[in-house]
């Protein structure tokens, strides 16, 4: 196990950075998309609400692998035809973004709903438009409230980024499979890779637990 770690450290580090890169891009993308669809579920327009709801329900209930393979096997050749290069990493990150955005939309919608109705009414009576009130008054409070859940989503994102291995995304899991195949020491390789994943997820997980513990105790978290 130690031997594999030292001999293939550069490869593992490459994969680690790709995993991290993909997760962070997907997090930013899905935060934007998720917030957008959370707000669209609440705008005073029934038709838009339904559309946003459909988006969230569809991407929440379909496996990530199906979405990712759709982009890799169907969309990638299609756009390559049009002259846009799309490799496994891009396809995988798009899949991750769409999948996670539906969960983040749910998280943020729940936080917006948890904010007292009076905030919106006060904003409106002071002459702000619906969008202004949402953007300047409701969303900042909702974001603060949803930090623990967003942290959990990021942990899931890092774990889910392992599907990049299916589409040759050069991430940790993909490199691990290659190393396991060339060294015949699957046990050692997968142990090392587990350590690399835990380096990201475990501190985050304990951090989230601590924030939740503090807010349950009634402190300001």
């Amino acid at each position, binding site marked *: 196990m130690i031997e594999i770690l030292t001999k293939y450290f550069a490869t593992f580090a490459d994969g680690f950075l790709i995993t991290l890169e993909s997760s962070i891009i997907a997090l930013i993308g899905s935060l934007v998309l998720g917030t957008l669809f959370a707000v669209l579920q609440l705008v005073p327009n029934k038709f838009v609400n339904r559309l946003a709801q459909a988006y969230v*329900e*569809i991407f*929440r*209930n*379909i*496996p*990530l*692998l*199906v979405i990712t*393979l*759709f982009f890799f*096997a*169907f969309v990638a050749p299609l756009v390559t035809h049009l002259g846009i290069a799309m490799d496994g990493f891009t396809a995988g990150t798009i899949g991750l973004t769409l999948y996670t955005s539906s969960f983040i939309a749910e998280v943020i919608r729940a936080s917006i709903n948890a904010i007292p109705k009076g905030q919106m009414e006060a904003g409106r009576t002071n002459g702000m438009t619906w969008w202004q009130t949402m953007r300047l008054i409701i969303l900042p409070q909702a974001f603060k409230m949803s930090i623990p859940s967003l942290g959990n989503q990021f*942990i899931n994102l*890092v*774990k*889910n*980024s*392992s*599907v990049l*291995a*299916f589409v040759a995304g050069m991430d940790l*899991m993909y490199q*691990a*499979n290659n190393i*396991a195949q060339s060294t015949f*020491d*699957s*046990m050692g*390789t*997968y142990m090392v*890779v*587990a350590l690399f*994943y*835990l380096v990201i*997820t*475990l501190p985050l*997980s*304990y951090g989230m637990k601590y924030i939740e513990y503090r807010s349950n105790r009634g402190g300001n978290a």
Partner: protein
Amino acid sequence: MSIAMTLASTIEAFNYYNLRYLFIGLLYTLSVSVISIALSFVFGSIFGIIVYEKIPYFSRWVSIAVDIVRNLPLLLIIFFMYFALPNIGVHLSIFWASIAAFTFFESAMVSEIVRGGIMAVDKGQFEGARANGLTNAQTMFRIVLPQAYKKIVPPLVSQFISLVKDTSLATGIVLPELMYRGQIIYGQNSNYMIPVFIMLAIIYFVVNFGLSLISKRIEKNLA
């Protein structure tokens, strides 16, 4: 490709043989999910109670193990069960390796849910039961757990939904479930790609959305 041809291949893709092939895949997906969730309900409850009871040393190690397993990618655990366990002499078939992996991972998830459920039960219930002469074990199994299980139905169902979705990862060790069979079909004829993806999406959506509706129903009835 013209629209008429696309339409023709779409209809052709849904022929009897392909549909039957996918249906057997769905049976694999569902049977692996059901067996795994049943097993992990048992193991998860045991671990959850152990962590809750704060047995010196023992509980702490179980809790650390649960945290480690929860924070690993499921795909890694699947590969570990199938490719790494033979290194130490444990040979599992594809079917049982996937069940082992899902059970291993979901037990950790379920144990956190069960622990949360027990913690949500009112402290007075413990004290009341103890004051009435029940032993610790009786209090846990007769009074606290039944109430805890009622509270954790919604998170358990959503865990089950994510398990149904995650069974698609077992494609990585060639478990012939829905996703794998879909890939086989469009691998033979690339015109079938779009219809197959639509079909897969519909099947997964119907199963999972149905489950979430059932969960909401149960939630209402229990409340």
